[in-house]
């Protein structure tokens, strides 16, 4: 039973390697980091640690920061770069070690996914919390978690919406009501702004599909 299963993994691995690498290369060449991300995701789903290893290494060597900056606003690029870097450095190393020791492809891939996921979670929670405590806080900056939520807003309105919110936060709300109230106001605006924009976007997409 073991041999056919291994052969099946091998075939899927080859297909995953081909499609994942192709997507990653096309994504980087056309400066679309999302497409490159799909390449890595394809590799991971295919269950081949070797595939994931190659593509994540390729992504870490290629200019990820530049690609992110070209595709996103500076604050989004900055936010995405940390997890991308941690995942691309840690995940392949652990995956490689597991593969060498156990020679089990599937186990290596599962660990790879776990490590990548844990690295992102660690970055989002522990590291950011420690940095927050160590560094003096800038009250003129809106809450970054709320800003992160604005990634849900459709791209056509995102930049202007974030700019308007930040301008009103800095020039009107913060001087008038103080940091705590201003942060609360920002959160309220973000939460109440996402729903109508998402609803409008989904109606637009549904209209385009039905037409």
């Amino acid at each position, binding site marked *: 039973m073991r041999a056919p299963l291994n052969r099946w993994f091998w075939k899927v691995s080859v297909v995953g390697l081909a499609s994942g690498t192709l997507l990653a290369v096309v994504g980087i060449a056309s400066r679309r980091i999302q497409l490159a991300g799909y390449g890595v995701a394809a590799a991971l789903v295919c269950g081949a640690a070797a595939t994931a290893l190659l593509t994540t290494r390729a992504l870490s060597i290629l200019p990820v920061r530049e690609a992110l900056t070209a595709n996103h606003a500076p604050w989004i690029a900055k936010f995405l770069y940390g997890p991308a870097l941690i995942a691309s450095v840690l995940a392949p190393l652990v995956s490689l070690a597991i593969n060498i020791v156990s020679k089990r492809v599937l186990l290596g891939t599962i660990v790879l996914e776990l490590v990548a996921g844990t690295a992102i979670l660690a970055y989002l929670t522990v590291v950011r919390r420690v940095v927050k405590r160590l560094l003096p806080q800038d009250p003129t900056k809106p809450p970054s978690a709320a800003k992160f939520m604005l990634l849900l807003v459709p791209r056509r309105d995102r930049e202007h919406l974030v*700019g308007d919110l930040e301008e009103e936060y800095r020039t009107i709300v913060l001087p008038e009501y103080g940091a705590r109230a201003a942060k609360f106001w920002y959160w309220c605006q973000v939460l109440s*702004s996402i*729903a109508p924009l998402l609803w409008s976007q989904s109606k637009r997409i549904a209209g385009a599909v039905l037409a």
Partner: protein
Amino acid sequence: MQNRINKKCDSLGEFETLVLMAVLRLGDAAYGMRIHEELENRAGRRCSYGALYTTLDRLEEKGYVSSSIGEPTAERGGRAKKYFKVDNMGRAALRRAYRTTLRMAEGLEPLLGGAQ
């Protein structure tokens, strides 16, 4: 059926009318934050930026307003402003809505306790 759809597209909702008026009043300085401020100060309407941008997008799709991107500024964290301008179709729609309101309100002043 098509006629009904066209009529629906031509008509302006209350919030759309307010937004169009704010954009018209602000002229060259009509961008998201200013429109939001104008709606709050003049009309007493508190709305989210999401609702405002949804309405502006809809008005743009109808051809009532057009938009252009301005220069990025430091107080916006280096983000550009999106300026809006009322187009001729928008002016015509606003004029129609205004006239309709005037016609409907004609003779109602005593019942409303005066125009002011």
